[in-house]
């Protein structure tokens, strides 16, 4: 233990920025046409939720749970773990979160109040997951390496945060927020070490979700 305490966070960052961003380009190419189909499925579920909140929520939960399994296996375990051994500990959490979302959506008696700030923030986070790829051109990175819902972790976790806020009951929200919040904070810290400003999007997503759930009335 004494030895471990001599390490600094930067000592565990064992890959370069170039390697990190190329992971997304390689995964987008390997999973094609998922980078198009997964966001379309999420958009369709979101639109359904706007018309039929209860069934739409189940559709959203189903889509997000499925892609969490896929991202945890394909991206985190197969692609990210070879350059970051700590990711091996994160990969199983994607499966746990998929199970939690599926359980929560199926057992929730109804959707949350559609007009509440909590639900609005939830839908906002799902919309953020859909437009997340635009961060690549904003940051002057190649669009081929954009982070896309269903392929890359952070937009997928953003959608998971959104679903957590759409499920009624703040306590269910906290259960569902835990894992994606921790994983997004880890992503933010990694990016802070790699590229500074790139840390902001995942950390802002977590802040928005936590604030919305904390400020929500008990039964929203």
């Amino acid at each position, binding site marked *: 233990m004494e*030895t*471990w305490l*001599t*390490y*600094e966070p930067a000592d565990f*960052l*064992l*890959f*370069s920025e*170039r*390697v990190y961003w*190329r*992971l997304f380009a*390689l995964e987008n190419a390997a999973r094609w046409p998922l980078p198009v189909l997964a966001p379309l499925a999420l958009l369709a579920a979101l639109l359904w939720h706007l018309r039929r909140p209860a069934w739409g929520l189940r559709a959203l939960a189903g889509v997000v749970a499925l892609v969490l399994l896929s991202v945890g296996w394909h991206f985190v375990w197969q*692609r*990210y773990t*070879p*350059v*970051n*051994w700590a990711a091996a500990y994160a990969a199983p959490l994607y499966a746990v979160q998929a199970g939690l979302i599926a359980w929560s959506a199926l057992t929730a008696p109804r959707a949350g109040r559609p007009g509440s700030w909590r639900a609005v923030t939830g839908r906002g986070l799902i919309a953020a997951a859909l437009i997340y790829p635009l961060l690549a051109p904003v940051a002057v990175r190649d669009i081929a390496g954009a982070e896309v819902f269903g392929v890359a972790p952070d937009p997928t976790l953003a959608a998971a945060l959104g679903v957590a806020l759409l499920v009624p009951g703040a306590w269910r929200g906290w259960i569902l927020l835990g894992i994606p919040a921790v994983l997004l904070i880890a992503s933010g810290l990694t990016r802070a070490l790699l590229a500074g400003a790139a840390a902001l999007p995942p950390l802002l997503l977590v802040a928005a979700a936590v604030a919305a759930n904390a400020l929500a009335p008990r039964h929203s």
Partner: protein
Amino acid sequence: MDLTRRAAIAGGLAFSALPSAGRADDSTLRRVPSTGAMMPAVGLGSWITFNVGTDPVLLDSCAEVIAAFVEEGGGMIDSSPMYGSSQNTIGYGLDKLNRPGDVFATDKVWTDSVANGPDQIAESRAEWGVDSFDLLQVHNLVSWRGHLETLFAMKDDGRLAHVGITTSHGRRHALTERIMREHPIDFVQLTYNLADRAAEARLLPFAREKGIAVIANRPYRRGALPRRLRGAPLPGLAAEIGARSWPQLLLKFILSHPARPIAIPATTRVGHVRENKSAARGPLPDAAMRREIIAHFENL
């Protein structure tokens, strides 16, 4: 002569083709005091630079770096299980070169569990694609007592040529010195560069006194030193010793220490490999010049 496997490993067969006369005085070469094995003074690190996962483009790019390193004389390539996919990248590069002989395969054991050490070493061998390592080190002194026992047992059995320990960032020098005093290690790896000279106080002179070979890691502070010095004037003596750039001067400074360290800069660029290798050629600064380089650096 019928060489046994053990004698072959201990003698550093990879570099047996080097001319024997006067080679210990050659500034481009280093001799391991405990075994007499010879190798080039500039090796190749793999921290961060070779951790490219399964990216086929970057794997090929790293293989080109290894090819250039071998073409320039080869020598120590250093890695660790801690360095992500770096070991696999080295194995990939060596495969592409049809397993060149002039590589001094250097790795580490890095696990809290002493019992897991042999399995980790076996995995490292598989990643590299080698039967045995020329040097294995206890990484950052993690569970050092137990791992040293394992490594010395391997050396006694002829399954390992050299044993070492590593530290970095100036950490735990007192314990490092104690291990150097109490255990018959062949190598000590530590951080030494123009900006990090804590090892000059005790470890470097003690290594020289004990006949322990020194490996200098972080020669460029992970690239921060050349970046910081970009555009800064070189000292006037740089031309006298054939240093055309700050990276070359930084390496010449390390290599000129009387403990005769082996420097292991890591890079992703073929041009940098060649520049690093060329730093060992030609004259190195003497004691007065070293003082002048330090003064110049500290006044920048």
